């Protein structure tokens, strides 16, 4: 009972802090999720644990974090399912070439720079328990991710989806998401394959490839029946929702057993769900609010409780942190903008696309938590990368306003050519 009381208290404090800071950040022109992420960090050892250690020890004793972590993981599974659900091939319609080129360059450039940075960081922030290949590939993946959900929200709030920049960006982010998660799955498989008792790498890769093919070819066809069921009933019934959640959980369990992390399976299950607009809306409506309002802040808090900014002591470590932020921005912003310019956008449009693609948001936190869980990054490097995620997300709104101000968005939105894209995130 004492455990339940504590858990309820923890959830209440987290929820209040997340909503409060979320609203505050919205007032200063930031996406609400930015405030929720910061709230998580502030509840951890970086602020609460440092300023009021007794309160922190009472509220978040280490022994209690297992419950919180488990709930946040379930929430994250549902959230990743929703992110997968959002991926709609129609986003690429008429933009495939630009989206694929820009997206792949926007991954390749930061990935390369992240791996190059690993040459410097590996002897300083890693240990011989981690192989360089896994470390470098993870650094590359961490540098190249884009926050599709945050991006979608920014584009919607700024009415950018009626402009060419907005439609190309969301298409790029969709391709980015799929590519980055495939890369991450490979990295996780590589790192985990060296653990005692783990499946050999070839078995993980072959099993994962077979599972993906099964989901895309067989699963997709089978899940189309869900949409027909929905059309017959005119609503997502509780039975239908249970079936959909079972599919997501089974896919998550399968990829976890295969050694490429449960989140990948949940994402894949969402990606192969039927993409009829009414069905997607109805399903999203059932799951979205509880996940985003209650469960995601728990994940942010759990991340914050693992983020110890105090580990960054002295100029040397802060210099490393600044270098990580710099490399992340140069790689993602520079790579995306260069590719967008090369595919025919103006410099201003290309710059705006680069700024948007540079948003790491909570997807970065998801990836970093996986990295910490499998031991490929150390606690101090985790803290540095979390700061990088916050910095790149925070800089998006002001930089976008500077490069692509509202008056230009209004003018571009009057352009009849871009096709309007609807998003439900």
């Amino acid at each position: 009972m004492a455990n339940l009381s504590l858990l309820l208290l923890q959830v209440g404090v987290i929820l209040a802090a997340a909503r409060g800071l979320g609203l505050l950040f919205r007032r200063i022109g930031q996406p609400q999720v930015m405030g929720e992420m910061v709230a998580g960090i502030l509840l951890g050892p970086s602020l609460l644990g440092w300023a009021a250690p007794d309160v922190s020890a009472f509220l978040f004793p280490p022994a209690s974090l297992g419950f919180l972590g488990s709930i946040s993981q379930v929430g994250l599974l549902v959230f990743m399912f929703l992110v997968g659900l959002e991926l709609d091939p129609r986003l690429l319609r008429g933009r495939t070439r630009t989206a694929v080129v820009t997206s792949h360059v926007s991954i390749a450039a930061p990935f390369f720079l992240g791996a190059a940075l690993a040459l410097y960081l590996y002897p300083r922030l890693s240990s011989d328990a981690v192989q360089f290949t896994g470390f470098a590939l993870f650094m590359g993946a961490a540098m190249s991710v884009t926050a599709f959900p945050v991006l979608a929200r920014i584009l919607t709030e700024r009415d950018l989806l009626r402009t060419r920049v907005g439609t190309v960006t969301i298409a790029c982010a969709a391709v980015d998401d799929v590519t980055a998660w495939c890369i991450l799955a490979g990295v996780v498989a590589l790192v985990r394959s060296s653990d005692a008792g783990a499946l050999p790498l070839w078995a993980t890769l072959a099993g994962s490839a077979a599972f993906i093919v099964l989901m895309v070819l067989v699963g997709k066809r089978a899940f189309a029946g869900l949409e027909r069921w929905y059309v017959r009933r005119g609503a997502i019934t509780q039975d239908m929702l249970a079936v959909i959640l079972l599919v997501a959980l089974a896919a998550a369990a399968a990829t976890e057993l295969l050694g490429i992390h449960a989140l990948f399976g949940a994402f894949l299950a969402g990606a192969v769900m039927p993409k009829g607009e009414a069905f997607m809306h109805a399903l999203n409506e059932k799951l979205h609010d509880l996940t985003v309002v209650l469960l995601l802040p728990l994940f942010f808090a759990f991340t914050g409780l693992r983020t110890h900014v105090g580990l960054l002591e002295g100029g040397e470590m802060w210099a490393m942190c600044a270098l990580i932020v710099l490399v992340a921005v140069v790689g993602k912003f520079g790579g995306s903008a260069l590719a967008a310019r090369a595919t025919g956008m103006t410099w201003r449009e290309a710059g705006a696309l680069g700024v948007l693609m540079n948003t790491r948001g909570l997807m970065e936190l998801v990836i970093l938590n996986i990295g910490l869980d499998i031991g490929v990054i150390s606690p101090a490097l985790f803290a540095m990368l979390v700061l990088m995620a916050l910095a790149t997300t925070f800089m998006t709104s002001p930089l976008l306003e500077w490069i692509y101000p509202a008056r230009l968005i209004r003018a571009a939105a009057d352009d009849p050519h871009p096709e309007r894209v609807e998003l439900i995130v």
Partner: protein
Amino acid sequence: MKSLLLYLALVGIPVAALLGILREGRGLDAPHDVAGEWRVEAPPGAGAGGQAERAPRTLRISQSGVYLTASVDGGGELRGRLRGDTLRVVRPADEDARGGCASAGFLLYGIFDLAAEPDRLTAGVVPENAPGCHPAAFTAVRERGSRRPGAGR
């Protein structure tokens, strides 16, 4: 055709360079993995005056490369560094130093035999600015299963 060339240039070159980085990086040495729970074995001088009193009973080390955070006997986190096969962790003296040797500052040093027994630490505690307190030597063994995940090599 133009798109294909563009793609090959902007994606192909970084990917090729990445392969070079991975090859180059395999030659790099990272610090020895020391993270985990360390069980202190009976110090050589157990029962002989100050030695046994000063030697810690448990040692927990969190590691970020060469940067260490250590907790001695479940106490607060102390900062230290790893240089090659040697670790150094410093505990400053308590502000209220009336607790005698227990509140004195100390230097905890340790040496790993990386080739023969990487999970064994030969260590010592040296009180600093505490004339009445004696140094103590001890050995510690890393508990099985306390290495951080991913440390399976």
